[in-house]
């Protein structure tokens, strides 16, 4: 048998071959399996396809994934609370972050949780992810009250002085927002970009404290803005 690709020959071969991936992984129901087995008995071409299918499936399943770096970064995030003696299960930093997310999700007004008009249905799920990022970003940019915060200490060490601008607003734009609209939104609110965008599209902004409520309200009125939220206690409702 050569390595040529075997063309489908119509029914029943096409139907049988479409089932082969799940035949070789034993995920067909009894009737389908019996149908495939019966056909393979009398069809050398489809038997050749079955052999190829088994090899292809095993090769894909055995394919190495370069996950080590990814896992190392995730593990570092997971272990961060433990390094501050506030473990994973003891209500430490990560747990607090999760509770914070829960509060956001439970207490936020509908516009922060439901897709804007016309947005695709997955937007609601994606927004849950945005909230996660908000919490993660908060841990980086929110001025921590305790001096023992490892995150805080790291930032101070790098900058040798407190950052002149801490994020106090998070905002998420619609994916199709044009750059000039985004820029106009920032300029209109006298906002400066502190961090972002993350891969999930969240920006952390700094706006003058005195006019933050107005800036947040103005951001929310813009059609391209999916979410705008103050991120410190003074601005939280």
């Amino acid at each position, binding site marked *: 048998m050569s390595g040529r690709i075997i063309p489908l020959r119509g029914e029943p071969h096409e139907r049988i071959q479409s089932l082969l991936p799940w035949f070789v992984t*034993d995920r067909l129901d009894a009737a389908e399996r019996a149908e495939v087995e019966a056909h393979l008995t009398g069809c050398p071409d489809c038997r050749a396809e079955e052999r190829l299918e088994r090899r292809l499936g095993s090769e*894909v399943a055995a394919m190495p994934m370069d996950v080590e770096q*990814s896992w190392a970064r995730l593990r570092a995030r997971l272990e961060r609370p433990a390094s501050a003696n506030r473990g994973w*299960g003891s209500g430490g930093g990560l747990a607090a972050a*999760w509770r914070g997310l829960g509060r956001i999700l439970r207490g936020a007004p509908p516009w922060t949780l439901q897709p804007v008009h016309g947005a695709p249905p997955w937007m609601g799920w*994606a927004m849950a992810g945005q909230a996660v990022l908000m919490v993660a970003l908060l841990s980086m940019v929110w001025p921590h009250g305790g001096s023992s915060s490892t995150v805080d200490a790291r930032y101070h060490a790098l900058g040798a002085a407190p950052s002149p601008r801490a994020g106090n607003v998070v905002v998420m734009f619609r*994916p199709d927002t044009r750059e000039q609209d985004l820029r106009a939104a920032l300029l209109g609110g006298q906002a400066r970009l502190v961090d972002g965008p993350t891969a999930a599209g969240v920006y952390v902004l700094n706006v003058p404290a005195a006019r933050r409520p107005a800036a947040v309200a103005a951001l929310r009125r813009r059609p391209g803005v999916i979410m705008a939220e103050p991120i410190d206690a003074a601005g939280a409702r």
Partner: protein
Amino acid sequence: MARIARRDLRAFEELYRAYHPRLTRFLMTMTRRPPLVEEVLNDTMMVVWNRPERFNGSSRLSTWIFAIAYRTALGALRRQDQPIEDKGADQRPASDPGPERQLGDRQVQAVLLSALDDLSSDHRAVVDLTYFHDMGYREIAEIMDCPVDTVKTRMFHARRHLKRILSGHLADWL
């Protein structure tokens, strides 16, 4: 899940650790972007933690979690302007394997990796869920929220593409 619904963080940790390898594998194959994998995976599990009541037992737990991961990954890919479904893949001629792909059998997997990169994320998702996660086409259709025939069609075209790319090796396989 009942423990997670009662906000049992240790139960959630167990679930997280149990699903981390499988989700990592799935999201890595689907998105091909390691930094995105981390984010989507954790976003997925945060939904599980915060919305456990949405799992009503009508499907397997893995189906529910993978469906969340799939939708979350789609959202992340869209925000990064990554192609989701390559509608022109069926008409486009397959890449000529070329001399650089006429490799020894030990390099089949390297060729496979490259061939998978040519597929859309939807096609890669079907391939991974089928071959690595041993899921049936009905379960995959549930995860991807599409008809079962769409799953079969995606798998058919993905296999055809992989076979074309690997045609230099097929004689050794048969």
